[in-house]
């Protein structure tokens, strides 16, 4: 335990690797939270691998209807040449499910990246400068945010592809529709953070120094405001999949000849279910649930770990008497001091002040 002592006196910077977003949280987590994070990461990596390797692992193409032995046939039950059966349209279910990962990943990336840039920039400028532009943007984004995102995505996809899923429309239309839905979310988060950070002493200090607005925005505000982004990113990624599937289910997705899309397959499976044909609906549906579950688990764990109130900690061993005399509490503020700190919740707050009492002893 003397090592703990040493780290207080001489704060060794953790290696860069350990400070990387996910890695850092993984090391920080314990027990149930670690289990959730690990499970989420596993499922998410499985999804990523499937998406990348779909051409290799899928037995057939996503729009393949026949092989050398002739047509696959419609609604074939699982087994034989078709592990998960075939759809009402005569496609191989397993192949469609695997290829669907690729479509989902592509849409997530395009949608999240586009909305990230637009939303972050707007939120930063709006929150920092305030004024009438800010007020207008806030009202518009609040209105859009309150609107059912699926309906907005439908309207957008009508606009982009004219309601017809031709080849250009397809994937890009879905991605851009989702983008428009997400911009207000990023805008709100970044704007709120910007407004909060603007009132922090270090930003005021930069203003007193006479630093230019651009310098303050990008050197001081932006980097601090975007700390929660990995979290929103994961939450939005799962929402992007659900929106994409919803669009597909309503017939606004991607034609089976262009790419494989789970929502579309579920739509086509709607009538199968009534006649007891379960495999056409079950597998694409499970794929959606699994991917969203994985990404959400990662997001939730990140959220908990970022919030000291929700973060779990390793329990102290019963033999607490053996713990070395590192009487200095990290955070230095276990007691309510003149700064008006709130007693016992404070050891939970992260900053570690090395040698806090050293001044008193010197």
């Amino acid at each position: 335990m003397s090592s703990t002592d040493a780290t207080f006196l001489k704060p060794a910077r953790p290696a860069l690797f350990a400070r990387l977003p996910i890695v850092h949280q993984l090391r920080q987590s314990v027990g149930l939270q670690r289990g959730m994070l690990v499970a989420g990461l596993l499922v998410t990596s499985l999804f990523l691998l499937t998406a990348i390797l779909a051409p290799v692992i899928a037995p057939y193409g996503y729009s393949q209807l026949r092989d050398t032995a002739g047509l696959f046939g419609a609604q074939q039950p699982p087994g034989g040449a078709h592990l998960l059966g075939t759809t009402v349209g005569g496609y191989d279910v397993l192949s469609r499910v695997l290829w669907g990962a690729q479509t989902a990943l592509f849409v997530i990336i395009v949608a999240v990246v586009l909305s990230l840039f637009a939303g972050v920039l707007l939120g930063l400028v709006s929150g920092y400068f305030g004024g009438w532009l800010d007020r207008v943007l806030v009202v518009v984004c609040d209105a859009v945010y309150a609107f059912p995102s699926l309906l907005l995505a439908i309207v957008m996809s009508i606009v982009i592809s004219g309601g017809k899923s031709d080849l250009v429309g397809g994937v890009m239309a879905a991605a851009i529709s989702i983008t428009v839905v997400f911009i207000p979310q990023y805008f709100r988060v970044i704007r709120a953070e910007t407004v909060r950070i603007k009132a922090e002493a270090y930003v005021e200090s930069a203003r007193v120094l006479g630093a230019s607005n651009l310098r303050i925005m990008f050197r001081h505000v932006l980097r601090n405001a975007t700390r929660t982004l990995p979290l929103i990113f994961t939450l939005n990624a799962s929402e992007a999949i659900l929106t994409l599937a919803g669009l597909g289910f309503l017939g606004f997705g991607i034609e089976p000849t262009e790419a494989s899309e789970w929502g579309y397959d579920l739509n086509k499976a709607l009538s199968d279910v009534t006649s007891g044909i379960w495999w056409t609906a079950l597998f694409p549906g499970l794929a959606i649930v699994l991917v969203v579950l994985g990404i959400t688990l990662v997001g939730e764990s990140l959220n908990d770990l970022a919030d000291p109130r929700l973060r779990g900690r390793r329990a102290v061993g019963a033999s607490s008497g053996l713990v070395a005399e590192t009487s200095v509490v990290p955070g230095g503020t276990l007691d309510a001091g003149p700064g008006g700190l709130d007693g016992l919740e404070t050891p939970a707050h992260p900053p570690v002040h090395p040698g806090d009492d050293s001044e008193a002893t010197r």
Partner: protein
Amino acid sequence: MTTAVSTPRPPLAGSAAKKKRGSGGGLGRYIVVRFLLIIPTIFILVSMVFWLMRTTGDPITAALGGRLTPDQLAERISAAGYDRPILIQYAEYLGQIFTGNFGTTISTNRPVSEVLVTYGAATLELAFYALLVAFIVGIPLGMVAAYWRDKAPDAFLRIFAILCYATPVFFAGLLFKLVFAVWLKVLPVAGRASTGAELQMQLLPGKTGFYTIDAIQTGNPAVLQDVLSHVVLPALALGLLTAGVFLRLVRTNVIGTLGTDYVDAARSRGVSEFRLVRKHAYRPALIPIITVIGLQIALLLGGAVLTETTFEWKGLGFMLSEFLQARDFVAVQGIVALLAVIVALSNFIVDIVAAIIDPRVRY
């Protein structure tokens, strides 16, 4: 020996005095300001829908292009006024919405407002039952999860919540249908009521469109049972989605308030842990929860579109997807605009409820 009144502290005493002056005026003023705020919201949404839909061209070509000759098309377009300048059409559209006129559908040639009235009740009925499920499942389970925080029940409930949220409503619907309607045959597959029951209710003089109410009016318990058995699966599919969100929300907020000083203070008075969660942590947590619930109404309505399609529940969402298939964008525009108004209004009501619960606003 001490003076009874402590020194007035300007900012605190000042604001308290200001609030007291109106005696409830704080709330009245808040309601007025909040009401005025929904006007731009509705305006923006309605305008957005209009401009977005129009960038694709006029609705007639979209709906009937290819089926009519160019001459016939031009005739229909000019008859409907779609060849006029777009700004004039926009002004007319705003004026019509103001008077409750949402245009005429192209595919069925009915006023959109009539479609809204006919099918609106079905959607509201579904939304009501779904919210009921969400409240009954989400809020108590959220409190249970917070109480057993980081223990086994909490872990189980959190996974349950994420599953609720991760399962698309239409997939949940399909699964429910498969298990309960097709395999077990205990509940009906789709629709709002069986044909016989629907006929009985159609004959009612004062029918409301809300089948539960109409079924009670028939006085026939079999009809009511039929209607209720139809609502179970759609309400569960849609309600569980929202329940997952509620569960998470209640858990996080209650855990947050459990860490506050006033909970510790109540604990130091000997109040039981259960009561701490139920009274001290839950009530203050309720205010942010209610505000977020307002935002969930949008999610619920979006989900309703999918649920209704899954269960052939003849409501606005079902009609929306029918009109979408028919490329009838006048009808789509009307339905979307109406949903926008509903969302804005319900957010307004939710905010007012939150304000009424919060004594800091009330007094």
